[in-house]
């Protein structure tokens, strides 16, 4: 690709496409602050009432807590399992490492709804429908590919001489890992972690089949609310998610750089 700046026509097209990408986001935010139950043009009245409704709704609060807890526990579990696996795969300690890595990545190309219904039947057969543990295991499996990808990239980008030097200087494998290897792969792994947290928090097509009765994650709560007819507090809670996403992205860009994610 040349470094020549794009022509005016190209920039105009790009601006229109960005408008298309941001249009529904703007609409949701406007609806959240608007007084009428249905969004009108121009928006009528300014209110924070819908936000107050969200913060006083025990269902939404429980959903936020469940989503955060699930994302944190599942990502932690997946990380604890994925980092050692990446270490062994990187050092070629196991035969057929490529096949194993591909297997670990495979949940990514399976339609999520298929994994969801398969798990629904599975937990019904085992008689463990609607348990938090199943949700954690399922989410850990779903986010594993992101951690494997960034983990392997992190190990591959590391100078192997660093670990050898630590070993020659008398560190055992554990010390060498925690004192030398971990700090080097940290930023790469951090990007995978952020992606895993977002993926788990946002997951619907598997989660919807596994939720305990009467409980739901935040996206599933909104999904169900829309499915049953829109209530303006949906716009308010969606706006909160938009704000959280924006803050998170700016923080990632500031501290790690977007390049690590994409």
């Amino acid at each position, binding site marked *: 690709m040349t470094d020549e700046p794009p022509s005016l026509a190209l920039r105009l097209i790009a601006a229109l496409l960005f408008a298309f990408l941001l249009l529904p*986001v703007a609409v949701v935010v406007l609806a959240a602050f608007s007084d009428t139950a249905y969004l009108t043009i121009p928006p009528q009245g300014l209110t924070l009432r819908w936000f107050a409704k969200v913060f006083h709704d025990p269902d939404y609060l429980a959903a936020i807590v469940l989503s955060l807890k699930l994302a944190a526990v599942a990502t932690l579990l997946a990380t604890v399992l994925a980092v050692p696996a990446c270490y062994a795969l990187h050092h070629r300690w196991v035969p057929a490492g490529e096949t194993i890595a591909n297997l670990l990545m495979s949940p990514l190309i399976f339609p999520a709804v298929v994994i969801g219904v398969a798990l629904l039947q599975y937990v019904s057969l085992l008689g463990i429908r609607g348990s938090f543990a199943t949700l954690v295991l399922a989410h850990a499996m779903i986010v594993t590919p992101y951690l494997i990808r960034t983990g392997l990239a992190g190990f591959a980008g590391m100078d192997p001489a660093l670990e050898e030097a630590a070993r020659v200087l008398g560190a055992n494998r554990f010390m060498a890992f925690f004192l030398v290897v971990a700090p080097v792969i940290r930023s790469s792994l951090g990007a995978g972690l952020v992606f895993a947290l977002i993926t788990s928090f946002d997951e619907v097509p598997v989660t919807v089949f596994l939720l305990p009765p009467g409980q739901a994650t935040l996206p599933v709560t909104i999904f169900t609310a829309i499915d049953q007819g829109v209530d303006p507090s949906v716009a308010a809670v969606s706006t909160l998610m938009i704000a959280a996403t924006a803050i998170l992205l700016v923080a990632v860009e500031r501290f790690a750089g*977007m390049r690590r994610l994409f």
Partner: protein
Amino acid sequence: MTRSGERRAGWLLVAPLCLLLLAVFVAPVALMLPTSFRTYQPGLGITSGWTAHNYTQIVTDGYLLEVLGRTFVLGVSVTAICLVLGFPLAVVLARASGAARGILTLLVVFPLTLNVVVRSFGWISLLSNRGLINQALMALGIVDVPLRMMFNLTGLIVGLTHVLLPVMVVLLAAALRALPRDVEAAAATLGTRPWKTFFLVTLPLAAPGIFAGCVLVFVLTISALVTPRLLGGPAYKVMATAIFDEFLSSLDWPTGAALAFALTLFALAVVALAGLLTRRWVAAR
């Protein structure tokens, strides 16, 4: 460490993750396979005995055939639109540098990371009968009755294009950035017109990346559940939402399982075929 010691340590490190994958991915999918050959009778549930009817009905039952065809049309349309719209955006993104590159990347990644439920909700506010677009069209006197843009193919295409355009742009921009810097300049120096350079130099070189982007967008479109459900409603079904309803509403798990395997096979076949074609293409040049 000795070679066999490394082998043993390696298995110990890899095994826990493999066990997790076996327990909550491989086993559930494998156990759904026999279900897809069972019969379901309303009121009785899943009965004993084997049948291939769940699979044959997908191509003989008019309704299921329509759902299958609709899913395919949706996948092709969304992929084509994402490619056409995504290309200029990817070119702008790939050529940007410094602060502009950071901001443009953020603008593409922001919708990408934003929850799909939230994004679909935004489109409902825009496309529904009382939505913003219809209000605007009626206020301007362009239409008298609201245009139907939801619960049909239009709504699904718009919603899924919005969901997958950033994916396409990210992949295309990566493919364009990986191009050797000098070839376009060389073509220009030799007097080739810009559009000719684009079609004869840029496009063939970026072809494997473009193809990979299209395959991913197609597979993600035919697998999508949330956007088709919210913008299509319970009546306008695609494969994924049909599977959802068989399992949660009609409780006909054998039919749902057969549909699930058909969808998976479809997606995996597209991925495998694409991989084969890409290897041929790269080898041929």
